[in-house]
């Protein structure tokens, strides 16, 4: 049994497989925390992209693109194109693109009150076998 448990721990350390190399796209030395307003969401594969406007300290506004997961799984959990409407305030923590553009990975996405985006009380509790529904 000890041998069995050891294997379990070993296997658990294997990271999840992604569509592409995130470390090649984003810079681990450039963590960002962005607070802003959703302008649109691209529900496209292999990765969804959230567009948001972020107000800079000098009053100017920068439009950021945030890379997220495949929308298919979100759709299966009940989300629709109406689930993240323009105008929604969100907070994104992630890492900026290596080429310096206003792009980042959406490592953790929350609402300003700290509630996790996409893991809300309604849609987040749905199972894959639940019928997708319009919100």
């Amino acid at each position: 049994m000890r041998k069995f448990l050891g294997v379990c721990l070993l296997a658990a350390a294997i990271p999840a497989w992604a569509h592409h190399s995130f470390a090649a796209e984003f810079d681990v030395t450039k963590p960002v925390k962005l607070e802003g307003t959703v302008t649109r969401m691209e529900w496209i594969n292999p990765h969804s992209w959230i567009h948001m406007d972020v107000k800079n300290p000098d009053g100017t506004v920068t439009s950021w693109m945030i890379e997220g997961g495949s929308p298919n799984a979100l759709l299966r959990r009940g989300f629709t194109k109406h689930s993240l409407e323009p105008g929604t305030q969100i907070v994104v923590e992630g890492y900026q693109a290596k080429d310096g553009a206003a792009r980042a990975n959406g490592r953790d996405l929350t609402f300003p009150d700290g509630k996790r985006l996409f893991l809300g009380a309604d849609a987040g509790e749905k199972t894959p076998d639940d019928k997708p529904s319009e919100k």
Partner: protein
Amino acid sequence: MAHRRITLTVLTCLFAVASLAAAQGLAPAAKAAAKPAPATATAAPSLTADGQPDLQGYWTNTTVIPLERPKELADKAFFTPEEAADYAKRQLATPEATGPGTYADVHYNMAQFGLEKSQTKVAANIRTSLIVDPSDGRIPSMTPEARQRNAERAAKNKGHEFDAAENRSLGERCILWPNEGPPMMPVGYNSNLQIVQGPGYVAILQEMIHDVRVIPTNGSPHLPSNMRQWMGDSRGHWEGDTLVVDTTNFTGQTAFRGSSENLHVVERFRRVDADTVLYQFTVDDPSTWTHSWSAEIPMTKIQGPIFEYACHEGNYGMANNLSGARAEEKKAEKQPGAK
């Protein structure tokens, strides 16, 4: 930090792993110790309108079982149902081991996007590896020819990984994913497929990454050997209640785990109950492995539909990876001592 939640889904999966696998006769060696089949295991539907065994529906081959048996379990082909449940629980419940600021951390939180296995249905299995032959549950040794071929391929790309799109993997390029096969391997997420049958054909729609295999079962021969395809040329026939699919004519670039264009795959699909298709395959390539090898992967029923996954549509990551590499190169040029 990613937090994997133990939801009702997971508990359902665990019950499935513990009971459904034992009930399906997937593990003869362990069956004697298994509890009687639960009432939920129902008989397989009989035939399609035109008399074929009915494999139709939506399926997932998502699994927590590794392709190759861990060496520590070399002499153990099957878990007991209790061990299988414990193994699955640990696989599904352990948070991702990523620390802030590490390379592994430069990623989104998979759970937020519903991409963790704990959030999906997992196909029941009490094997310790998907490979069932050879008996050690591991891929046979590569031939010297194959080792040299793969080493040369790797050496050719070394240092040029981000030169252009052609240097990137088939998956990143939206050309082919392992789940598409053949053989059809489970992948990390969206590992879903649909089987549709018609007179003389079986079609398999794979969610990742958007291909359909149209398999003739009308007795037609393989394509001429000079016609090569990424997914090979598949021809099927029925042996009793089992669909047998023979695939040849692969390209050398398909390289399934280092295989050559001589790869030959034989797949077997059998509906073992209403909720399960047992998928088995044997791969043979004398140019690559010293022996053929076989695996067995239960596919469990899910509710449809399969969602479109138009991989090229939003593959911004390809351009972003390459532009990231160009930025790195410029940065290196500015370093003191750079040429």
